[in-house]
């Protein structure tokens, strides 16, 4: 790759990667589009550059590095733990800034010591930023989906509701809409009286049979994705969930939790206090949270400049725990963003569960911050 196009501090980045035991890898600029759309959803479609091969395969210009680096790891069939680093161009349709820009980052795959690996990712991101932005006052915001999951679970909601809330975590509008439904349950409308009667009588087998017959008659069964059993089971669950009402106190607790925002150093005490006052057992999630904090402190991180925001998450199903972002004080431009994505590797086709944590650096924003400092 011609160094001439690289950011002027590319050498510093590469030196940092080497010092931090991350092996630099490259990936093709032209990537199959499927994995990106599959993982991030259709929302990505209008933000990437799509094209087609002669044979009709959907291709795109690399919109980010995490998925290509993970796919490369899976294809290379090497073992874990591995630490990969990247530095190269990515391509996205953006309203602000150029459509092609550099990203760099580290992906840490297969380190089973979760708390230490999380702390190391944060330390790496901050350490590298400090080297290239020595005069900038950096601010880190951290969230943890596992803590939210623990709160939801401790409130004793049915599994279906837990799944809905966890799925919406990070999308405040969606989450608010769900809380509204929990506060004011609506009866299920539009159900055929025959079906209602079957459900009321608990005749799930009869319903499955009836669905199966209708599917056969309408010729829909040949290619049906959802089976009669799946539809009947979800109908039953839906009727049960529609009757779930979260009482006022629990709802207040959940809302109170989501408004928590405080210095990271104070977060364990605040979470413990919240759990005590609410009478909730948050268990492992909070232990892991505290262990991560301890690892950060041991590594000499300045925890006082870090903020914990309970509602901070990413509404994608492969993120599982830690998320973090680094900005310059007084700015909202994210200079580095990262998190734990323990579900991504298996979603991409890895045979075994591979825990993973990583971050990427927004090089163009770092360049702008360097120019200002």
């Amino acid at each position: 790759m011609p160094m001439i196009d690289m950011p002027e501090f590319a050498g510093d980045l590469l030196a940092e990667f080497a010092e931090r035991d991350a092996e630099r890898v490259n990936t093709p600029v032209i990537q199959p589009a499927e994995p990106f759309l599959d993982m991030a959803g259709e929302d990505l479609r209008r933000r990437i550059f799509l094209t087609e091969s002669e044979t009709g395969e959907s291709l795109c210009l690399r919109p980010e590095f995490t998925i290509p680096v993970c796919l490369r790891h899976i294809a290379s069939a090497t073992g874990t733990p591995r630490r990969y680093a990247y530095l190269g161009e990515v391509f996205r349709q953006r309203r602000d800034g150029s459509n092609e820009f550099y990203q760099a980052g580290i992906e840490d795959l297969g380190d089973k010591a979760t708390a230490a690996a999380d702390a190391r990712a944060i330390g790496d991101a901050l350490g590298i930023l400090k080297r290239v932005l020595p005069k900038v006052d950096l601010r880190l915001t951290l969230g943890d989906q596992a803590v939210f999951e623990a709160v939801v679970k401790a409130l004793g909601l049915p599994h279906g509701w837990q799944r809905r809330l966890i799925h919406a975590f990070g999308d405040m509008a969606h989450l608010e809409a769900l809380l509204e439904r929990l506060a004011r349950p609506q009866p299920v409308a539009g159900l055929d009286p025959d079906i209602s009667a079957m459900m009321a009588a608990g005749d799930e087998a009869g319903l499955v049979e009836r669905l199966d017959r209708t599917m056969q008659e309408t010729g829909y069964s040949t290619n049906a994705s959802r089976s009669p059993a799946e539809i009947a089971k979800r109908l039953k669950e839906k009727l049960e969930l529609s009757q779930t009402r979260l009482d006022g106190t629990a709802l207040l607790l959940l809302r109170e939790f989501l408004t928590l925002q405080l210095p990271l150093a104070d977060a364990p005490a605040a979470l413990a206090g919240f759990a005590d006052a609410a009478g909730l057992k948050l268990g492992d999630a909070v232990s892991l949270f505290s262990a991560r904090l301890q690892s950060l402190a041991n590594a000499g991180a300045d925890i006082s400049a870090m903020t914990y925001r309970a509602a901070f998450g990413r509404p994608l199903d492969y993120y599982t725990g830690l998320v973090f972002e680094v900005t310059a004080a007084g700015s909202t431009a994210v200079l580095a963003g990262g998190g734990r994505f323990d579900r991504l590797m298996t979603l991409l086709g890895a045979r075994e569960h591979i825990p993973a944590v990583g971050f990427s650096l927004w090089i163009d924003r770092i360049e702008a911050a360097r120019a200002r400092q």
Partner: protein
Amino acid sequence: MNAITIALPSKGRIKEETAAVFERAGLSISAVGNDRSYRGRIAGIEGVEIAYLSASEIARELAAGAVDFGVTGEDLVREGLPGVDAKVEFCARLGFGHADVVVAVPEIWLDVETMADLGDVAADFRARHGRRLQIATKYWRLTQQFFSAKHGIQLYRIVESLGATEGAPAAGQADIIVDITSTGSTLRANHLKVLSDGVILKSEACLVRARKPVHDEDGRISQIIEAVRASL
């Protein structure tokens, strides 16, 4: 004086009904050359030209600012133009060409009546079926705005469908569809039902203006809009 171009549908009922609206509005169209010509003029207003184009081309030409006005379905304009309201003005709804863009799922999905239900199904789909929920549609922009922005549903895949979309679920090309319907009879014939909150857009033929600065000082622009509005 700049020429003003009005793009009108080149065929079918929408062409006839548009001609009727313009006639009632006192904007009578004369063909240039012969009757089958794709160019026309408006008698009585100087420098106003008619270009007959296909309905989807009209949306594209409005987006490019290549024409000043167009008559076409709101669905095509909203689908074709990102940031649509900054680029065009919907001047008048013409009362014909009614079609709703809707989310329709197999009738047999008794457990799915609302978008929230669909969100639940989409969230679990990959775990159960090894792939994301698939939506057949030609309206990928409208679908994406409705699912992602309005209902917080991210995890689904669009399968582009350029025709006979209603058949896609039975054929196994997709699980559900987003398509236009006017009476719902084609959907019912294909054992599909519209979700109770699944109407994305109530579309009809509209007089649409491409927003251009030169229009501000051109009296013919407001003359045309007023004439069409007054005829409705």
